């Protein structure tokens, strides 16, 4: 079994493809650096991520794949799933070897896997647009904590920037410990070393809340209760469309 070790970046995978072609040995497994090697491992190669090599592979891909398929590759990588590494690697390899694009051949397991992962990531992005809830702080900043399954904050942030162009806001990914702050002009990627309590609970303290914030939260909860038709209760469907893992930070589900 041939194992390639890489630094778990997208450029790393592209460099791995470059190395594989120049060494003429193709890996059976891709692993992150420092991970446990499989039991029967004949050969390991450590990929040193090199932007120039990665760019050359990308250039080759651009010749064959459509723009949609290219973004499918990069976006699926945001899932951060370790089991995606090999399908992604083989997808790129097949594209390089094939005379025409294989991007619509969904009978191919790797293409299907990458496309389905892309769908899942985009779905998670959509859920970010759905379930982010802002709380207004005393200084007028709207604060939201979010915990998406995949690394989608960067994908969804442009939507918020367009929509709330005239309000400063902060959306913070608790799991990956970074977020974006918008000051009515530019978006800045931020990450806080010191954790204030609302970065852990997602709830602003009362002294940090703007004057009417509590009332509007109460109004929203009232609305949420009133809109339900008792004769049609269907908690199963509610949980299917709004999985419980999001409830932690939803205003309407707080007490």
């Amino acid at each position: 079994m041939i194992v390639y070790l890489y630094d778990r970046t997208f450029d790393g995978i592209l460099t791995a493809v470059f190395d594989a072609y120049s060494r003429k040995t193709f890996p059976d497994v891709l692993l992150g650096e420092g991970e446990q090697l499989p039991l029967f491992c004949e050969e390991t190669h450590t990929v040193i991520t090199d932007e120039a090599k990665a760019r050359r592979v990308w250039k080759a891909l651009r010749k064959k794949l459509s723009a949609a398929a290219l973004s499918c590759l990069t976006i699926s990588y945001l899932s951060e799933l370790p089991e995606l590494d090999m399908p992604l690697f083989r997808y790129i390899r097949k594209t390089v070897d094939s005379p025409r694009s294989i991007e619509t051949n969904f009978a191919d397991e790797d293409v299907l896997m990458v496309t389905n992962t892309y769908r899942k990531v985009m779905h998670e992005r959509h859920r970010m647009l759905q379930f982010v809830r802002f709380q207004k702080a005393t200084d007028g900043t709207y604060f939201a904590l979010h915990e998406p399954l995949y690394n989608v904050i960067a994908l969804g942030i442009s939507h918020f920037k367009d929509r709330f162009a005239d309000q400063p806001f902060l959306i913070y990914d608790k799991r990956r410990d970074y977020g974006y702050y918008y000051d009515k002009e530019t978006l800045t990627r931020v990450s806080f070393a010191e954790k204030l309590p609302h970065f852990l609970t997602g709830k602003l303290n009362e002294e940090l809340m703007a004057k009417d914030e509590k009332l509007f939260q109460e109004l929203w909860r009232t609305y949420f209760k009133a809109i339900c038709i008792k004769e049609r209760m269907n908690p199963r469907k509610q949980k299917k469309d709004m999985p419980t893992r999001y409830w932690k930070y939803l205003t309407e589900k707080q007490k």
Partner: protein
Amino acid sequence: MTEQTLEKLRILTESAKYDVSCSSSGTVRSNKQGGVGNTLGGIGICHSFSDDGRCISLLKIMLTNYCIYDCAYCINRRSNDIPRATLSVTELVELTMEFYRRNYIEGLFLSSGVVRNPDYTMERLVRIVKDLRTIHRFNGYIHLKSIPGASRELINEAGRYADRMSVNIEIPNEDSLKRLAPEKDFQSVFQPMKFIQQGVLESSEERKKFRYAPRFVPAGQSTQMIVGATADSDKDILHLSSTLYARPTMRRVYYSGYIAVNTYDKRLPVLKQPPLVRENRLYQADWLLRFYQFKVDEIVNDAHPDLDLEIDPKLSWALRHPECFPVDINKADYEMILRIPGVGVKSARLIVSSRRFGRLTSYHLKKMGVVMKKAKYFITCGELEARGVNELRPERVRELLLPAPKKKTDDRQLSFQFPDEP
């Protein structure tokens, strides 16, 4: 904004909740300089899901629940003794803006009970959407109910600010409508629909000539029918829907299972539970009309005036037409592949684009997300065949596909009769 608003919000939401429509789709519009909000188009965004599983996309609320009409099926009819309230324009506008800024909602769904006369009510609704758009520069989604019987001028003005407008038919048959809602007739419903349609067509004509001509109700119109309040069959309902869909601006017809809100009214049937299964089947049939290229006569006709409640309408059609099957996955047209039970729009597209590269087998279909449990009776893909619908006969396939009846108790469990303790 006070505690009183809280109570008003509760009352007016409970009055508005029986309106089904809550979609925020159909318009793509990015934010403007100095404005708040955009609309996404595509499938829209549902921000929450209430305990009954329905999505909350828009702030669905009535301006007032006072009403001069006395429609038998409506909770807000004037003879009902319920708490009544009216929101002021500033309250409603502030609620919408503040909810929107916190990402609770996609926009506003505004309707109203009829006070004084239709035009007076419509004028007040128009004033609110105008305020939102021009003073507060709200650029999010607005769905406005058009009041039956409102005049053309008001609808023309409303259409410039709203994304979608709707007039509810409620009862799919004019005689029943007159019986249940003496103040309404089909004319009062279809007239505003026609006004909206004309407005949209005129504006699209103008936009061909002038690029910045104002848009008119860009997301089209929708309507709603109550299911189960009258004796109308699914055939009547779906035929009406299909004629409506043939019109250029009708985007959605919603079906609302009748909920017995006014149990004392003898004109209405007594239902223990809202007809949720029937409602679901109607939606499935509606999808067949809109996305699966079915004609309404294929789904319901004189021989089958009602939808089968046990199996979905697509499977039901397939079982009535075994001569169309089996379908060869590797050769058949897209239209025919769409008709296989267990194959949806997504997997049909995957099949059509993948088979250019090589033969597809049932293994591939399964991976692509085809429900093989259903589809296996209706397809052939060059493998050793399982027995299909023609060999097994449709009746047998139907039996096989019916969901297994739920066992209430485990019959392997022994039970003992204990004498009652003294």
